[in-house]
Each structure stands twice: as C-alpha cells, then as structure tokens.
C-alpha cells in the first residue's frame, strides 16, 4: 500500500511536439553525419529551459535506410549558458533502424532519463550514422519535466554513463538472440563505473537484408533479468526498420559500480545477429 505517501507532481513541463499536430514531422529533424562522422547539432527546444528539469524522455523515429545497415548514434547536448556552445550530456544513444512516421507507425524508440538539467540550459542533439547516406526522414522528440513537488519522491541523477558503444563504427555491442522462443546466452554490454539509480537500453539493428521477424530482449546482471527493466518486444521489418513495444517510464534500479550489464534475446524464428548492437545507459 502507498496511501500513507502524499501525492506529488511535476510543476513544469515542456515538449517540442509543435503547435500544429503532424503525422510525419513532430519534433525536429536532426540529420546524421555520414560515414561515422558527427552531423550538425540542432536545438531540440525553441528556447532555453525556464525551469530546472528532473526528467527527460527522448524519442527517435525515421533513422533507417531501406536495403542498408544504417546504424546510428545520437548525442544529447547542452549549453548551460543558453547558447550553442554545446557539450555532451548523454553520449551515443543507439537509434539506428527506427521506423519512419507514417500510417500506423509512431515513435517507438524512447529513452527515459531522470536527470538534472539546470534552468537556462539549451538542449540539442547531434547524430552520426555508419551509412554513406543519411536517413532522410528522421525526427527527434523530447519531453522535459521539472520540479517535483516532493523531491524526496523522485530519484534523479546528474550524469549518464554509456556502455557498449563503438563510436567509430556507430555501433553498440553485437548480440545474437536464440531461435524460436529459446533465449540466447547473456552478452555483456559493459561494466558500470558508478552506482546507477535508473537504466535505459536500446537496439541498433541487424544487417542490410533484415528478416521480418519478432524478438524479445531482456536486460540483465549476473545472468538474471533486472526486475525493473522488463522484456522489450521488437519487430524488425524488411525495410531494415524496427518497432519497439515497451514504454513504461524510467527503469528504476540500484546497480552498484563494477557490475557487468548484459542483454539477451530470442526470436520468433531463426534469429539474425544484431550487428548494430545494443547500448546501455546508466543514470548516476
């Protein structure tokens, strides 16, 4: 029971959905740099934050190229002075293969970060892809919440550690799922160097001839699934794009420094290697 705990809420909120609803162009179009070079940074919000932020949700859609292995990484950038002297806040979010916005296709790849960003800060994003041609229809959407009325009820961190990424190839750590409902072995993505209070993870695609197949993936430690980070269901289409199911808010955790963080998966049929790999992001 939780009725002895007083309710609370975020006092502030802002997003970049735009004033007029749109199927295909919510948020902003961040164009990745090609051949593993960073693209140009683009502001996510039209102005500097007017309140301290304690929680951001960032969503990616449309970062795929049919017939190609377009692995992608995104950096979330800040300028605390409210300008465009960007420095990285969150490195290398994997977002390759994210399906494009069209009928029945929404934003499927979401990252939830309970993290402090000071009022007055500008937020931006820059991306890179392994491919020689940049995906053309990418969109990045952000929701930012601030000032919980009961700060003791909302854990948040001040940094995010990225695990498992090779930025030079725009990839995460390769995972080979098991076939037909049998989980593959746990693959270590990286080892934490701080105590995490929340954790996120994401996929970056298979190959240039992706099979239409369904996957379940799990996040683990010591070969056991982390309870607060439930199974993700991921559908991969033949257009080298993916759609992911899970969205349930931040994945709260208490993971000590020095922990090996793992991912494993299974497929509806014969699994493909996830050559674009997985990345893990720990909030500390």
């Amino acid at each position, binding site marked *: 029971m939780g009725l002895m705990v007083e309710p609370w809420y975020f006092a502030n909120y802002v997003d970049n959905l735009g004033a007029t609803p749109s199927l295909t162009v919510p948020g902003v179009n961040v164009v990745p740099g090609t051949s593993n070079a960073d693209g140009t940074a683009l502001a996510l919000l039209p102005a500097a934050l007017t309140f301290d932020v304690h929680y951001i949700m960032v969503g990616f859609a449309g970062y795929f190229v049919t017939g190609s292995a377009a692995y992608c990484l995104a950096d979330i950038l800040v300028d605390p002075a409210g300008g465009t002297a960007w420095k990285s806040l969150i490195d290398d979010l994997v977002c390759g293969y994210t399906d494009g916005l069209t009928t029945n296709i*929404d934003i499927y790849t979401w990252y939830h970060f309970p993290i402090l960003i000071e009022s007055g800060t500008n937020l931006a994003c820059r991306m890179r892809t392994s491919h020689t041609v940049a995906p053309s229809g990418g969109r990045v959407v952000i929701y930012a919440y601030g000032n919980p009325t009961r700060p003791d009820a909302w854990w948040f961190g001040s940094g995010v550690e990225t695990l498992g990424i090779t930025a030079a190839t725009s990839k995460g750590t390769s995972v080979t799922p098991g076939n037909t409902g049998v989980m593959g072995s746990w693959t270590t993505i990286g080892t934490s160097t701080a105590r995490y209070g929340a954790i996120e993870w994401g996929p970056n695609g298979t190959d240039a001839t992706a099979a239409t197949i369904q996957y379940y993936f799990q996040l683990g430690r010591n070969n056991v699934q982390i309870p607060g980070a439930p199974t993700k269901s991921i559908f991969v289409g033949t257009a080298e794009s993916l759609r992911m199911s899970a969205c349930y808010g931040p994945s709260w955790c208490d993971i000590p420094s020095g922990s090996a963080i793992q991912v494993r998966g299974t497929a*509806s049929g014969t699994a493909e290697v996830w050559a674009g790999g997985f990345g893990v992001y720990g909030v500390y």
Partner: protein
Amino acid sequence: MSLIVTPWSFANEVDNLTGTPASPWGTTVTPGTSNADGTAVALLTSLGFDVHYLVVAFQGMNISLAAFYALADILVDPAGGTAWRTFIDDLVVGYATDGGNCWTRYHFPVWIKSGTSVGCRIRTSHTVTATNPRVHIYAFGNPSKPQMWWCGSRVETLGVTAASSIGTSVTPGNAGVFGTWANIGAVTGARYGAIQYGTNGTDSSALGVQYHFQLGYNNIQLPGSPTMRVSMATTENCWTTPMGPIWCDIPQGEQLQIRGTCSGVAEAWAGGLAIYGVY
C-alpha cells in the same frame, strides 16, 4: 540536486510477453458486441508478489468503416481464480489500431495483492467484433523504497457511458488552435495521486489527421501532464504516443477537462475521451 536520495528498484516484474515472440503479441480478448460485455480472459494468473504498478495496453480494437467504440474492464480475483470482479472500469480502447505494433497504453500505480489473478473483458458498440484484439500487461511490484513510489488502491473512471460504450465527446479546434475545454464526467470523488486519459475514436468515416489533446482543470493544463499525440487513419484506427504514468495531486471535488487541436479540420470525437484517477 537529489543525490542524497539513494536509488531504489522494483523487486518483481511479470508480463504476458512469454514463450516464442509473436507479432502481434499479448493475449486475445474478444469484445462483446452491441454494448454487451465479452467473455473475461485471464491476463496474469495468481500473482507471485504484491503489485504496485500496472501497465495495460490494447491493440486491434478497430474495424474499417465502422465506429468501433470499445470499453475494457480490468478484473481481479483475489483468490487467484476466475471469480472476477471489476478493478478498473471502462478504459476507452476503441479504434486502437491493429497495425504497426502500436498500442493504446494505460499506466496505473496501483496496489494489487499477491495471489490475485488479473483479467480483462471488453465490450464494443459495434455489431461485429474485431478480428485481432490484443491486450498486453506488465506488473511491477515491491519497490525497495516504498516512500519513493506513490501508489493508490483504486481507480475512478470519469466520463464514460457504458450503455453505448463511449466516453465524453470532445470537439478539437482546427489547424493548431485548441478547442474549448470540455468537462469530462462528474467532479472527482477522491484525491488523485496519478491520472490517465484516453480516446475512443471519431466516426465511421474518419479523416486521416493528427491531434494533440491536453488534460486540464479550471481551463488550464494540468501541471506535469504531457500533451498527448494521437493520429487517426482513414481506416478508422488510431495510435497514440505513449506518455507513461502522470503524477498529480488533484483534490476531491475537482472538475477535470480535456481539450484538443488538429492538424487540419477536426472531427468531433463522438466515441469520446475518458479520465482515470488513481486514489
């Protein structure tokens, strides 16, 4: 800064993503037609732990060229069997698309006792049921620091007319201009600590346009509640960008509202919208 607050986690989690992956996934729950309840189906059997957070999602509650308004009840049997009683009434789920693995999701920080079975039954206003209706559920339990996780024990439903399987009609404004705030149901009957809202479709000849909806009271947007992005297809199905739990502190006796805007010329949401307050 809150770094003096130590981390916490849920100790337990269970879902109905089991066995071999499938598309679509989840449990089939077939709506009853003509506003009669369908057969109850178990989603989770005899929980092995106390639950403090429930996420339920719906897909395939649509028929092309039909006004497929639909309501879903979340049921429980505390004894772990199938002697169901209602736990959450009348979640609006009509028009939830059967394509693209989109889902209409609800997030409830609510307590359910260990040993309880959780089920679902659905009704639709339409005379023909949907062909692939699916329900997906996650249940999290036992936060290691209970004081960090507000959860209630009940959910109040506002704005639904079960006899016609609809919520409260809202007419959004056109082309980025918000319409007027529409009152949804009666005033709140309890103090809410979390809140959700959902949509139930327009009509049998839906326009392919996009909407933003906002939750409010006293003609202002409720603090901490995000704008909900909803897209409608000409095949009478819609999909919604997920929002997660919405924390709030709404007193008893408050009149809650919803307003919306459209990418072009808005249609009236005749299937209506509804609000769910956790207390």
